[in-house]
């Protein structure tokens, strides 16, 4: 299945019945898939909105009513959705937002790039907030993380971002899809707006004029984010046990790096990989732990250097960090990145 179709199917299987979006390449197969499938599902609604801004606010409305809801876009469109993402966080509403990112800034191009890392993990929206961010690296992970994204969004009442890229959205791989969850089995939402029948009326709002109360609301969000940091960090390693140099890469760049590391290992070069799967919460502790025994880190990103800042935060000055990036939508082959890693490895006299 194609990556973008996988996202759509996994969402429907996770109980997503509402999708609101706006066309932008390279994610158009998601709205196309949803427009085909959602009307066939019970209560399913697909709307192609007039803008990204409108679509994210339709997401807010459907989420207020208690539905599982998704929107998707690519870089420039995600910029427009930031207002709504800030509101989703403030209003404590669950939603899944997919970014099949492209080269930027500005219109850039439609080639795969990882230049929206800052936007995804720092939030381009206003105010103090965090969003859970997944960085899948295969169609299988797109299925698993989209599905899990809906569960985490509901569990924490917070939006979950999936940061893919044009390559991941377009590539085709065999996928084992998750089991469809019956809507009746989804957890009840005792905060949803459904009309005040047989209960006191509810309101969902983010305006808190009293600074003391707004501070309380901020601390409440902070405690939630701290719980997410404790419980939801995900990463994986590859050839890490005896590595003298650790490559850190996420998403499709990590997939390419894996190929490079496999090749280098065959030549006896002792490099390993740490791949953050959650970009927020970031695996700071795992990286810090590695920095006690590995003194050379090689960060590879398809941008000018964004995640590398988090890697440095995790390492806390305990090891040397080398960054290699290719922005603009350029895709490296495993052979090319293997050459760069190997040159760095021998320069540092590790082998």
């Amino acid at each position, binding site marked *: 299945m194609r990556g973008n179709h996988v996202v759509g199917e996994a969402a429907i299987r996770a109980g997503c*019945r*509402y999708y*609101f979006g706006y066309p932008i390449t390279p994610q158009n197969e998601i709205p196309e898939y949803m427009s085909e499938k959602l009307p066939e599902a019970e*209560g399913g*609604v697909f*709307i192609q*909105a*007039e*803008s990204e*801004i*409108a*679509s994210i*606010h*339709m*997401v*807010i*409305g*459907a*989420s*207020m*009513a*208690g*539905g599982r*809801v998704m929107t998707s876009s690519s870089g420039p469109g995600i910029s427009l959705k930031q*207002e*709504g993402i800030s*509101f989703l966080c403030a*209003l404590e509403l669950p939603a899944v937002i997919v970014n099949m990112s492209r080269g930027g800034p500005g219109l850039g191009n439609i080639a795969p790039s990882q230049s929206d890392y800052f936007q995804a993990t720092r939030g381009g929206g206003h105010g103090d907030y965090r969003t859970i961010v997944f960085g899948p690296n295969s169609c299988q992970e797109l299925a698993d993380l989209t599905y899990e994204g809906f569960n985490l969004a509901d569990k924490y009442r917070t939006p979950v971002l999936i940061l893919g890229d044009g390559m991941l959205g377009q590539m085709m791989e065999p996928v084992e899809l998750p089991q469809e969850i019956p809507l009746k089995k989804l957890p009840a939402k005792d905060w949803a*707006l*459904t*009309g*005040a*029948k*047989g209960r006191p*009326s*509810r*309101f*969902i*709002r*983010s*305006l808190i004029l009293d600074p003391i109360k707004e501070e309380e609301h901020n601390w409440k969000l902070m405690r939630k984010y701290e719980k997410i940091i404790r419980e939801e960090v995900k990463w994986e390693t590859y050839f890490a046990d005896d590595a003298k140099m650790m490559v850190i890469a996420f998403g499709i760049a990590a997939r390419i790096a894996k190929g490079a590391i496999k090749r280098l290992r065959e030549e006896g070069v002792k490099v390993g990989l740490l791949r953050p799967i959650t970009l927020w919460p970031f695996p700071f502790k795992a990286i810090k732990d590695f920095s006690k025994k590995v003194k050379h880190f090689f960060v590879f990103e398809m941008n000018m250097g964004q995640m590398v800042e988090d890697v440095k935060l995790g390492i806390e000055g305990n090891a040397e960090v080398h960054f290699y990036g290719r922005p603009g939508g350029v895709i490296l082959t495993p052979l090319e990145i293997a050459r760069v890693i190997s040159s760095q490895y021998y320069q540092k006299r590790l082998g």
Partner: protein
Amino acid sequence: MKKIFSRPKSLKTTPFHYCPGCGHSIIHRLIGEVIDEMNLQEKIIGVPPAGCAVLAYNYFDIDMGEASHGRAAAVATGLKRAVPDRVVFTYQGDGDMAAIGTAESIHAAARGENITTIFVNNGVYGMTGGQMAPTTILGQNTTTSPRGRKEKVEGFPINLSEMLAIAPGSSYIERTAVNTPANILKTKKAIAKAFRLQIQGYGFTLVEVLSACPTNWKMDPLKASKWIDEVMASHFPLGVLKDTPGDKKDAH
């Protein structure tokens, strides 16, 4: 003793924060009365805007969900599509509806979203201190058109309700006012009609209410009420702009 007048039960006991002579409190009360009379308290969901009415959820004893500035029609679309058997309305000011939220408003009407919008037009941005609104009329002084709005400088005001009436998806649009007892009664009837048509599934309905903002107009409430009739209503004529179902018994 028989009680003949009381607070609608769909309004909470919180006192309104609105200025003396402001139309919001009257419009809130009218919506409350209609909700009670149509027995909608348990099946209606409101979407308040940014602006003076942002605290509407403190006054209405119904489910309400806040929208950011201008996005009420999109939020209401998401809500209504998720719970189509509930009555969903937005409560928006002129800056919210006719400036920053123009796209959302036009497209909700174009799609024929089965929601109701209460569009409160007072010709200024009230909560931020009386700046020029898209509906500020030519010659009107505001804090950002201190020499009076001029068509060559600030451009013309926008008659959004007339524009929305062109959309095939809108079913009922009426402009009323809350400056005289007769106009207040007409406004109430219009709100009731809009909610009824929504329940019957006719699509987008809108009641634009010309409402006084004495504080920012720098007038006393009496003068502000007269100004609506004498000046504002000549730019924004009162009456039914569209009535596709054409239910004669509701016609004013």
